């Protein structure tokens, strides 16, 4: 239930990680997230290794730890839920500092916290090192339906325009002394939303006609060469690869 997103995460740079083709990074992060989710929660040291892997990737990409930590705030609602788990969970109970906690609840709180944190950190790193537009082109190379990628591209381009429009309307409301405090103020907010829809839809129609008159034929031209060499795939594959080796290795020992 996180509220709005004010800032994009991209952080310009020119490092090994920044230069990797987007499709390699996307596939690597998705595979890494899968490996993390598939790891049994009792293997504590494997999770430490995953965290170390991410820290290594962040160091190579020169993304400061504070940057990653601040951007991880989106996780907070679920942290609250995880903290509540030991109290409301079922099953065998253990006593800790005089408080009766569910052992099963403690384990699943750890499970959710560890996996969600690793997942969010990996996503933050991906978003910080990949330009949004390139990320979508990479997704298209990974066989995401082209229409879906197009929609996402248009969304990215319109997002700031519409959010700005909305901010101007909010400034106008507030400069007339309005703040939404009460359920009775909902109609005002909703009428703004209606006006926002009409304004942005009409603007979208104008933009579409302008695009058509400039030769838009249903797809945007891609100028960059996005092909990835096998070496780049290998570099990107190191993140999920090492994680997978650790997982399978522990499996073999256990």
């Amino acid at each position: 239930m996180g509220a709005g997103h004010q800032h994009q995460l991209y952080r310009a740079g020119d490092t090994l990680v920044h230069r990797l083709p987007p499709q390699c990074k996307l596939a690597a992060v998705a595979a890494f997230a899968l490996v993390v989710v598939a790891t049994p929660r009792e293997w504590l040291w494997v999770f430490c290794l995953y965290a170390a892997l991410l820290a290594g990737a962040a160091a190579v990409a020169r993304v400061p730890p504070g940057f990653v930590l601040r951007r991880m705030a989106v996780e907070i609602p679920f942290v609250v839920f995880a903290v509540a788990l030991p109290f409301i969970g079922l099953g065998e109970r253990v006593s800790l500092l005089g408080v009766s906690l569910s052992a099963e609840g403690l384990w699943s709180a750890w499970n959710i916290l560890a996996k969600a944190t690793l997942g969010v950190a990996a996503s933050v790193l991906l978003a910080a090192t990949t330009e949004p537009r390139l990320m979508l082109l990479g997704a298209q190379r990974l066989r995401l339906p082209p229409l879906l990628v197009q929609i996402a591209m248009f969304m990215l381009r319109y997002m700031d325009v519409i959010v700005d429009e909305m901010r101007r309307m909010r400034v106008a409301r507030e400069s007339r002394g309005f703040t939404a405090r009460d359920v009775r103020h909902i109609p005002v907010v909703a009428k703004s939303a209606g006006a926002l829809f009409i304004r942005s839809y009409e603007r979208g129609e104008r933009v579409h006609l302008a695009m058509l008159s400039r030769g838009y034929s249903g797809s945007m031209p891609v100028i960059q060469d996005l092909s990835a060499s096998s070496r780049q795939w290998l570099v990107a594959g190191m993140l999920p690869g090492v994680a997978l080796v650790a997982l399978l290795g522990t499996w073999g020992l256990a």
Partner: protein
Amino acid sequence: MHVPDGFFNAAVSISAGAVAATGVAFCLRGARRELDDRTAPMAGLVAAFIFAVQMLNFPVAAGTSGHLLGGTLAAILVGPHTAVLCVAVVLLVQGFFFADGGLTALGVNITLMGIVAVVAGWAVFRLITKASRGRGAVVAASFVAALISVPVSAVTFALLFWVGGTAPIEVSTVAAAMGGVHVLIGIGEGLITAVTVSTVLAVRPDLVYGARGLAAPLVLRGADGEAVVTGEPRAQGAPRRIGWFLPAGVLVAALLAGIVSFYASSSPDGLERVAEDKGFSGQAADHALADQPLADYGEAGDIPVGLAGLVGVGVTLAVGGGLFFAVRRRSRGEASARDEVSA
């Protein structure tokens, strides 16, 4: 409600991903019908609009505020297929660019907030607008549809949690807590959706997909007072053949599921029984916190069962209907292709 990684086990994440992919693929076909050649730009614009609208915080009660989910609003304004696509794209962008919602949980998020919320909202909206026509009905239907869509997707979350959640909590607790909070949020969502739709209806009624049949036909009057009616208002949505059959079927199935499971649950309580059989219900009584307010949610266990039945019907219809349409479309396409070859 952006579910992070690690909340659901791998099996549920992957099967929800499959459901989401099927639904999105189906909607990609449908959206072309709703927006023709302008699909990509306009759907992108609506996605950006939903993204912006989700930033509108509205006060729910003293001290708490919720924000709009926007699925039902989009369905009424631009049509259900485009709405599912837009919500899916919003979630994709939030997952990849804002790290909000886990990548492995993307399927779960799209299924819950995209498919389930939009399908539930749109089904309710169509049912009401079928029964009574006119602007008032559209606005009232928007309110009810948005109000229902939010708790329905919250209860579906609880259901998924029961199937493959990683935390040991009774499903009735989760369902009651999620459902309760989201009924409140749903009221706000319903109010905003209804007023937004009525605002747009007042200014540009042609932009409201859900009110397409309502535009009055254009009447041209000549100098001699002769009136010529031009341009029949476009017929309402779906193909006529299944036009009445689909909502009626949904209604019957929903009634059956809701009422039957409600009665079933007033005797032993079906879900609790299943939970005990599976061996994960257990020590609810010897909670140290058994007299705490949260423990009371067990009492409300009856209602979520009925709701859960409704939700199950919705999900099954959505998945089954999606597959049916996809298969039928394909076979028809192949048949026409064959005809062309033979002709």
